[in-house]
């Protein structure tokens, strides 16, 4: 999910019909720049080197999304397939939740199988520590900066839709990143945008980055 605006100019993207590293190449019709869909970066043309801003999006079920966002609207186009229901979690080894932190920064990823087993996974990097959390009922995955008020917390799963930090034993909502009880009640974790991707495509783009799978 990207913001499609560069310096106040709106871009409209089309599927270019090209593939690069097993992944879609987009073209904007305003400047005809070719963009990597996975990197969100202009690869050839006037906007080469420009990065699109990634927006936080969650992959979840419609039932869960609507329960959390009663006023939501939705896309109303005909279905092109019917295979993406909760069953997509039946092949979790094919997917990762990838978190590109930005130019010059690492792009860690966590395998969905790992998330399915552990639900809460800590990702420690030199630059930051992330907590990646999976909510089983809706199938959503979110990544958050584990730092709160300058202190890096370590989280572990503590029941449905909840995780607990080891420093204060506060209880946090794994979907919203809010502390619901304990000394840190009312604090919120900062969400880091990420994306569900095919493991093979992710490895092709980020061969040097870690995929947490064990």
């Amino acid at each position: 999910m990207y913001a499609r605006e560069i310096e106040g100019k709106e871009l409209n993207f089309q599927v270019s019909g090209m593939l690069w590293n097993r992944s879609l190449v987009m073209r904007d019709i305003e400047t005809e720049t070719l963009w990597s869909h996975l990197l969100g970066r202009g690869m050839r043309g006037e906007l080469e080197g420009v990065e699109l801003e990634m927006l936080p999006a969650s992959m979840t079920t419609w039932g869960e999304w609507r329960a959390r966002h009663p006023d939501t609207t939705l896309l109303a186009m005909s279905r092109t397939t019917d295979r993406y229901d909760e069953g997509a979690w039946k092949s979790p080894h094919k997917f990762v939740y990838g978190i590109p932190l930005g130019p010059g920064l690492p792009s860690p990823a966590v395998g969905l199988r790992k998330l399915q087993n552990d639900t809460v996974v800590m990702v420690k990097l030199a630059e930051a520590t992330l907590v990646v959390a999976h909510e089983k009922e809706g199938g959503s995955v979110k990544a958050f900066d584990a730092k709160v008020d300058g202190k890096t917390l370590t989280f572990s799963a503590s029941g449905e839709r909840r995780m607990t930090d080891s420093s204060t034993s506060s209880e946090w909502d794994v979907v919203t990143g809010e502390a619901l009880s304990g000394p840190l009640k009312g604090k919120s974790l900062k969400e880091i945008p990420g994306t569900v991707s095919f493991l093979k495509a992710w490895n092709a783009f980020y061969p040097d980055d870690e995929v947490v799978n064990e």
Partner: protein
Amino acid sequence: MKYPQFFALLLLSGSLYADDFNPRQVVKPFEPIMAPEITTAKNSAKWVNDDELVLGVTVANESRAYPINQLTKPTREIINDTLGDQPIAATW
């Protein structure tokens, strides 16, 4: 696999290097999708079931869901939309 037929073409085409931008035209370009039809949660029954996966996004307190089953086809990979006055590209 989203497009096994495309992967097969790529695999036949030899090694891939992430540093080189060497895209291959595998099909002709598709018309961009702009200003798509949007409906409310109340009218969702025809478009999505509770157990289907969606890509959900919130911008400026406005939320919208993009059912993955509506986005799964090369022609539907990118939806140019506007949410909370922000132009967005829904894609995954």
